[in-house]
């Protein structure tokens, strides 16, 4: 797979932006104070790094997922945490872009791509996992309004987002793929309670919260896409963002690798560079190989998506493989740094934590395997 000239330029621009704007001390401060890097997002948006795959009429780049992945990788490579925070600013907007109507997109997407608003999407519920076929959150119709009740968990940007796309049951009993809808809920509607989930393993600068909806009323026109299509839309969204998550993982791994590589070429013990020990050399070889493998599957999935041949199997494979690879590579980077690897200052421990978070969100290895197996094995007679 060869990148086009424009893709190479975007990649380079993202690398330069990250180099100029990311500062590990600021990152650590933001993480400790749990503050979102709002200024950084603004700057990234001004350069067009938010919503690259969105249509230009909504302030997007009019480009593809491959471009978005290139930017995600480049940003996370330079700083796993800030890179993730910038990419996650639009988490949920991907869904609005694909299924929302023109009015909604004008109202919200323009602000997201301008870096002035964070997106939010609330799919999961407690004890339900990521198959969403059973939902407790309901949306009932009353005159010209939806009345929403229920509790959603683990909402990225929860409490900070400018809108939430909420997955609701609209019919009492629903068979697979019917009776479920995505409804846009503005955060200032009465009846919304946000419960922040507190300190996290990683990504403390990005909010994560449970959100409760108690008789929250929104106009019927807040329906996103079609009633009855909510589940399919949610899955299509997940299939898309899993590829972006994989790209983040590739970037995180590459960033941990860059640091470890530079370190082993410079650090001496026993009067030799670490890079002269065969074990170190083989570790470097393993890490480089793993990154390349994960990168290949990730961009293959993104390229197919851009060609209109989105493949949910490949999405799940890419997310699972890239996240696992990133965890392993970052972990090895810690080891290669020795005691320094355990220190905040050297960053790689934060890269590890950020990688691990990717492995734990959007469905764990078991969930991905379930999905892949469903698709590969198919229905049994």
């Amino acid at each position, binding site marked *: 797979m060869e990148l086009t000239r424009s893709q190479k330029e975007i990649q380079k621009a993202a690398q330069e932006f990250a180099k100029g704007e990311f500062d590990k001390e600021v990152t*650590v401060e933001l993480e400790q104070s749990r503050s979102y890097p709002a200024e950084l997002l603004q700057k990234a948006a001004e350069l067009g790094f938010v919503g690259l795959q969105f249509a230009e009429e909504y302030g997007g780049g009019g480009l593809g997922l491959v471009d978005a992945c290139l930017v995600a990788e480049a940003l996370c490579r330079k700083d796993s945490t800030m890179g993730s925070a910038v990419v996650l600013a639009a988490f949920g907007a991907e869904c609005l872009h694909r299924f929302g109507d023109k009015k909604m997109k004008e109202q919200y997407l323009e602000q997201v791509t301008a870096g002035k608003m964070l997106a939010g999407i609330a799919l*999961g519920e407690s*004890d*339900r*996992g990521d*198959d969403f076929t*059973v939902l407790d959150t309901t949306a009932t119709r009353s005159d010209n309004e939806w009345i929403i009740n229920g509790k959603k*968990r*683990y909402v990225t940007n929860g409490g900070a987002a400018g809108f939430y796309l909420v997955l609701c049951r609209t019919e009492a009993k629903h068979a697979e793929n019917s009776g479920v809808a995505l409804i846009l809920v503005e955060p200032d509607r009465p009846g919304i309670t946000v419960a922040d*989930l*507190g*300190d*996290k*393993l*990683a990504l403390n600068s990005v909010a*994560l919260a449970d959100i409760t909806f108690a008789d929250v009323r929104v106009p019927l026109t807040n329906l996103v896409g079609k009633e009855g299509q909510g589940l399919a839309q949610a899955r299509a969204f997940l299939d898309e963002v899993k590829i972006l998550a994989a790209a983040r993982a590739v970037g995180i791994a590459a960033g941990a690798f860059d640091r470890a590589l530079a370190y082993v070429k410079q650090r*001496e*013990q*026993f*009067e030799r560079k670490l890079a002269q*020990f065969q*074990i170190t050399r083989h570790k470097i070889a393993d890490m480089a190989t793993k990154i390349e493998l994960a990168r290949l599957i990730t961009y293959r999935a993104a390229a197919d998506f851009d060609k209109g041949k989105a493949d949910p199997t490949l999405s799940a494979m890419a997310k699972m493989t890239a996240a696992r690879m990133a*965890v392993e590579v970052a*972990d090895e980077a*810690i*080891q290669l740094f*020795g*005691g320094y*690897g*355990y*220190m*905040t*200052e050297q960053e790689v*421990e934060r890269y*590890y*934590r950020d990688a*691990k*978070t990717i*492995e*734990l*969100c959007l469905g*764990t*290895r*078991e969930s991905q*395997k379930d999905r892949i197996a469903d698709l590969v094995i198919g229905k049994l007679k």
Partner: protein
Amino acid sequence: MNIITYSAEQQEFRKRLRDFLEREVSPYVDQWEREHLVPKSVWQKMGRGGFLCPSISTEYGGIGGDFRYAVIVAEEMSRTCCTGLAASLHSDVVVPYLDSFGTPEQKRKYLPGCVNGDIISAVAMTEPDAGSDVAGMKTTAVEQGDEIVINGSKTFISNGVNCDLLIIAARDPGIASKHHAVSLYLVEAGTPGFNKGRQLEKMGWHSQDTAELFFSDCRIPKQNRLGENGSGFMMLMQKLQQERLTCVLGAVPAAELVVEWTVERCRTAVQNGKPLIKSQAVQFALVEMLTEVKLGRTYMEKLVMDHIEGQTIVVETSMAKYWTTEMVNRVADRALELVGEYGTLEDCPIVRAKRDVRVMSIFAGTNEIMKGIAAKFMGM
């Protein structure tokens, strides 16, 4: 069959210790993690309770117990998840240097304090440019009349902020041979020229005061040399077997705790209407983790008994240090996945466990160094 068997007295010791930790330590661990330090008073309480340095003879206030007491303390400390109160490091790694190589005067002066908790100890080998390669240390100790003058810096020193007594390795620049130039010295906190640097921010062990230490013309009396001049390396090497075994005592109980907690979580957490533990994939993963933990436990207990018998088990302890510390990391990493999204919250105990156990394959000799030693001692 249990490999290690405990006397009634030892079982009673365990019970008292557990009560003590539940009362005086566990309730405060979160606070100490936030403060990045444990108060010295808790060391004193632990010492007064008779739980520090149980191997020290009664002559100096200890109980002269065998290494089983170290196992008990390590196991019970693991349950508190308190890394700051590094009792095993103090009792089983640092103080034994003084106990084995100290003169009667040195022992009389310091051991009772080490036992009753008035003296918190630390050992400083690592330097910014000399970690795995201990012999590459640059800190110098030069005799001048009745004094020894120390210059240089050490880093990553556990108990670095709290320590009252430091055992430091330094080289005599007059001696060319790397290995014969190193001696150990006792430096008291507060000695002019001994400065405790900043506390290092790290992935885990937040309540542990890992620090940098600086020495500029730090003068100590000549009597504070520990052991023979130039025998520093020999002493370090002699004590490493127990140090590595102490790491194993940290790793295995930590892994047991993680698995115990994960099994419980998988029993209660429901996914799509059924308890996680009813999923075949989860069951298999748990069985694999439990198998690893049990293998670790068996090897650990065997090595403890060999060590008590006085056997030389350098190869085995190196293998066990590397394997058990990797095992606990593997188990914690896998456990986080079984726990799923909850594994991204600090509220989940496995998150802290994972951040804490990561260091185990690095300190006290990295796992690469462990494998190298095992290879070397087996004549490869």
